[in-house]
């Protein structure tokens, strides 16, 4: 079972309120650019943890590598 970038995008946007995600990838290695109001005031570590938390143990398994770029966004 392969994972699609769309699936990752949907999971991120469903889990983090107000998040907008752009995800690219080959089914194993993914790049995610995510903006969300929740990131404001958070350290980068905390922002990335929020995204890793969406996927739990899938990172390292189905999602072999997930490269993340985060940016805070205005409240929608």
């Amino acid at each position, binding site marked *: 079972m392969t994972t699609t970038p769309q699936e990752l995008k949907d999971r991120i946007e469903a889990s983090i309120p107000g998040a907008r995600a752009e995800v690219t990838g080959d089914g194993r290695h993914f790049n995610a650019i995510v903006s969300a109001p929740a990131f404001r005031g958070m350290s980068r570590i905390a922002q990335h943890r929020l995204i890793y938390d969406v996927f739990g143990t899938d990172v390292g398994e189905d999602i072999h*590598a997930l490269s993340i770029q985060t940016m805070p966004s205005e409240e929608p």
Partner: protein
Amino acid sequence: MTEETSNPIREAIKSAIDENPVLLFMKGTPEAPGCGFSARVSAILESLDQPFAAVDILPDPRIRQELSALSNWPTIPQLFVDGELVGGCDIVSEMYQSGELQQALGLEGSADEADQEPEAETVQSAPLSIENRL
């Protein structure tokens, strides 16, 4: 949650983090990285002439399990500075480009010292082999 009172791997990881001001957990070694992400972080530190200690997590899968449980960070590499997780490849690369990494490492003035000899051995040999402590 499992019993964690006597967990030699976790204890070894903790002391490594405490004892090494700049510590990189990576796949492979700085000389022979086992993954592109680990290679990139190691290369960034070397390009800054930043001495660092490195732990190869590959020899025993429990190292990675315990490290991730301890740091609450699922991926490798992981860079620790002064006992704190700074980040993995993405964050370290971003911080390197913005100059924040140099700041975090206390290297702000290094651009002015560009003519210093970079030939010194900057990579310490691995300070510990966690797998040997089992």
